[in-house]
């Protein structure tokens, strides 16, 4: 893409310097996503095959599921896709500030989705007594949705990496800058990790199980403190970034590549939501 940058105008959909006319990074991601389709295809099939002929001792899905919570997390994931598309749109127009905001928004929405899944799994295991090994339904369900959740978690990490990449100074990395970048990544990981492992599941418990607010704060005081500290850290890193940056419109292909992965995770959930959840209620 560098030749385009030199020419002034960047065509974000075509690259005449490659034999296919498609940027290599984009082609690689599409090939990977095509292979991931087959991966999820087999997992969804396995789940459905065992739902067609359920063995004895299976849990009843409608008694286990909480369709309201799953619908909410589906909506959140759809909205995260919107923010991701807007992040790509912003970087293609050279608007770095908007790109960062949209990337962080996507991370937050992705973390809310993961938090819903953490709560769901915890509730299924402890309240519904459905583990990965005590029924075939549990085995296929946890394998499928857990694999999808892992994809979302990897997506959140990739989004974090590109977000931190957007602060790379034009002068390159000196020793101090490198250390600062690692610290930035660490703060980001604390921010996302504490949010989806502790805060979101605690918040859902607060709403669904009518836990008193005082109990919520008492139980999560240290996590809320750590989360607040990581928010302050992210704000400080954003404020103290270099003026001249090695990040701009020519990096749109990097943001778009991660966007492709994120949207793929969304379309897989579209299928899982219908095939695994909604069809059980008919």
């Amino acid at each position: 893409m560098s030749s385009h940058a030199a020419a002034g105008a960047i065509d974000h959909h075509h690259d005449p310097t490659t034999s296919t006319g498609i940027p290599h990074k984009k082609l690689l991601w599409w090939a990977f996503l095509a292979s991931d389709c087959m991966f999820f295809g087999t997992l969804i099939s396995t789940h459905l095959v065992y739902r067609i002929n359920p063995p004895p001792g299976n849990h009843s899905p409608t008694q286990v599921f909480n369709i309201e919570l799953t619908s909410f997390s589906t909506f959140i994931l759809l909205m995260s896709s919107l923010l991701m598309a807007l992040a790509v749109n912003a970087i293609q127009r050279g608007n770095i500030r908007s790109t960062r905001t949209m990337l962080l928004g996507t991370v937050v929405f992705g973390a809310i989705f993961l938090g819903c899944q953490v709560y769901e799994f915890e509730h299924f295991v402890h309240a519904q007594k459905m583990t990965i090994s005590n029924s075939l339904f549990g085995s296929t369900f946890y394998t499928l949705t857990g694999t999808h959740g892992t994809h979302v978690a990897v997506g959140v990490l990739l989004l974090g990496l590109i977000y931190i990449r957007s602060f790379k100074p034009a002068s390159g990395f000196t020793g101090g800058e490198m250390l600062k970048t690692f610290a930035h990544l660490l703060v980001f990981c604390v921010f996302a990790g504490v949010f989806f492992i502790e805060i979101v599941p605690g918040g859902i418990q607060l709403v669904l199980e009518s836990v008193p607010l005082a109990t919520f704060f008492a139980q999560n005081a240290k996590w809320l403190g750590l989360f607040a500290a990581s928010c302050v850290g992210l704000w400080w890193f954003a404020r103290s970034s270099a003026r001249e940056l090695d990040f701009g419109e020519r990096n749109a292909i990097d943001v778009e590549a991660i966007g492709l992965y994120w949207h793929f995770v969304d379309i897989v959930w579209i299928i899982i939501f219908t095939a695994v959840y909604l069809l059980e209620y008919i």
Partner: protein
Amino acid sequence: MSSPSHSPAAAGHHEPSKFHTFVGLAMILSVITGVEIVLVYLPLAKWFVVSSLVILSAVKFLCVIFIFMHLKWDKLFCTVLFFIGLVLAGGTMWALLKLFGAEAGKPLSATPLGLLLF
């Protein structure tokens, strides 16, 4: 290089913004999801609800890949490449569901032997 030099107002050669297209699509996807949830609670024929859910999911799927994932604006080869994986995955699913949905493909779980196995 720096952010100020890349402000949208500073450069006139950027491609047109798709902001309204994306926001509009997100609204449509939300409405479709809402319709899907309501559909399963309505006292309608099972075949109709299943068909509707499959069609609505397919519409959402195609909207996301063609608009959010830019396939509409990219070279056709990207679409072909992705659909190779998609068709293979769909074919595998269809074959497995046909095989295990057939009478002869039912597991032995209903028999005492099956109970032992599971």
